[in-house]
């Protein structure tokens, strides 16, 4: 075909399937995508510049807004970096509550992804089922922190307040009914012939290209590489303060082909692993007590000179927070590394010679969220 037959079309920035404001400039030849150029920056809020004019404590609530679907992970990455710079010890009970809330957050984030992914491909009903279950988690978070999405619950060296035993009982009830509901989703979706034909062998990501493009999280594990910061020797950071993941028993799900279907499969399995982790944390918290309130009382925290980078396994891949301090009350530099930023970058490669109707089956399966891309 000559260049005359090429059609240039523009998708977004305001498009219901792009989960935010992503613009894609596509070049089509008939129904085949020949090239794709992602254009980002529509949600740039200057999170990194903002850090330089706020004190450490003032910046803490802003951090939740980087990825509004998994605010606990961003909070944790930032708190962990500051705690390591100031050498504050975090009590074991606080760490267990942190892991509990983070795993619930991961579950709610995956539930939202599952609903919207299928909605993008034209299946409306899964959205209602997943939002029904996500609502239970969000209500529990609202009861605990007063907020449904922007929690601002962690502080340097601990938490704002302890959890009640009533609240833990409610989670136990939730964990009991949830596996049956995940089974329901699988019954509806996994063997659905329309879903499988639209996702199997679509958007295949090879191991090599996943590493070349720095893909992390479930997208990487769907290609068959079993890497998870929760399982490595120094979880989440190379820190003197160890997290409690090594004490917990859980499996890391992987798949082999790296196509859209495998990315779906890995996330569904991860939801089951989350439930396992949640119930272990609840058991520990019910049988152990301890202090969770932070020992740090002064609002103007002075952080000693130094730099630290903390890595968290967030629902969308590794989230790193780099903090450099010059010894004053404000951070000298804060840098965020998020999983979606790199998932957008691999999109042109996955879309090469793909069919136009497959665009949303590929893009949706990557679980990109735009506030995290632009920061």
């Amino acid at each position, binding site marked *: 075909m000559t260049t005359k037959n090429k059609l240039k079309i523009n998708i977004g920035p305001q498009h219901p399937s792009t989960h935010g404001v992503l613009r894609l400039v596509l070049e089509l030849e008939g129904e085949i995508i020949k090239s794709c150029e992602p254009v980002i920056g529509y949600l740039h809020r200057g999170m990194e510049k903002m850090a330089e004019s706020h004190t450490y404590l003032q910046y803490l609530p802003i951090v939740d807004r980087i990825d509004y679907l998994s605010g606990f992970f961003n909070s944790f990455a930032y708190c962990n970096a500051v705690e390591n710079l100031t050498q504050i010890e975090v009590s074991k009970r606080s760490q267990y509550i942190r892991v509990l809330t983070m795993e619930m957050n991961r579950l709610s984030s995956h539930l939202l992804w599952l609903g919207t992914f299928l909605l993008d491909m034209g299946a409306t009903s899964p959205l209602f089922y997943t939002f029904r279950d996500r609502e239970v988690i969000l209500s529990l978070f609202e009861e605990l922190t007063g907020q449904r999405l922007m929690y601002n619950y962690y502080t340097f060296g601990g938490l704002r307040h302890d959890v009640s035993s009533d609240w833990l009982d409610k989670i136990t009830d939730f964990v009991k009914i949830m596996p049956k509901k995940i089974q329901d989703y699988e019954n509806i979706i996994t063997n659905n012939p329309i879903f499988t034909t639209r996702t199997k062998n679509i958007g295949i990501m090879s191991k090599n290209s996943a590493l070349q493009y*720095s893909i*992390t999280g479930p997208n990487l594990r769907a290609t068959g590489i079993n*890497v998870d910061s929760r399982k490595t020797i120094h979880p989440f950071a*190379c820190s003197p303060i160890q997290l409690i993941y090594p004490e917990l028993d859980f499996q890391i799900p992987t798949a082999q082909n790296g196509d859209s279907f495998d990315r779906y499969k890995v996330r569904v399995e991860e939801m089951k692993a989350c439930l396992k982790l949640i119930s272990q944390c609840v058991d520990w918290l019910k049988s152990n007590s301890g202090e969770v309130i932070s020992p740090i009382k002064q609002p103007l925290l002075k952080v000693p000179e130094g730099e630290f980078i903390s890595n968290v396994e967030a629902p969308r891949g*590794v989230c790193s927070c*780099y903090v450099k301090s010059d010894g004053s009350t404000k951070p000298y530099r804060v*840098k965020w590394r998020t999983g979606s930023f790199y998932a957008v*970058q691999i999109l042109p490669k996955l879309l090469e010679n793909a069919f136009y109707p497959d665009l949303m089956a590929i893009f949706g399966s990557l679980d990109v969220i735009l506030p995290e891309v632009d920061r």
Partner: protein
Amino acid sequence: MNFDVLEKFNVEIIKKENSFDKIRVEASKLCDLLNFLKNNAEFDFDRLNTIIAIDLIDNFELIYDLHSTQIGQHTQISIIVDRNSPKVPSITEIFKSAYFDECEIFDLFGIEFTNNKNLKRLFMPKGWIGHPLRKDYKQTDERLSWNEKEEVNGKQ
């Protein structure tokens, strides 16, 4: 990490903790060092986590954060960039993920990456004046309505 084999790159060890190191190298030797660390089986740093740019007032610092998925090691390679002529060799040939990182740093710090094709502003609009994450950045663009207002008030 075993640093003895890195002697030929003239590395300077800045920090050495159990699985977390930071080394400094001259900008001209950066690509060779990254290639070596990526392809050597002993190190096997196969994933570039991110590139961090810092404004140190007198000059810039770039930190390349490397992870190895198999061995589970982390390392940081730091280079110092002259403020008056900020030019660094691009590493997109070694790690493709560096393309967005380099565009972001070009956009927000004004550091140029030689031989990076299609280096562009990533977040700020086209034609934006200045580089926002520099410490001496002042936002005085007259095309923006709030800056115009300020000027009017100043005149009055």
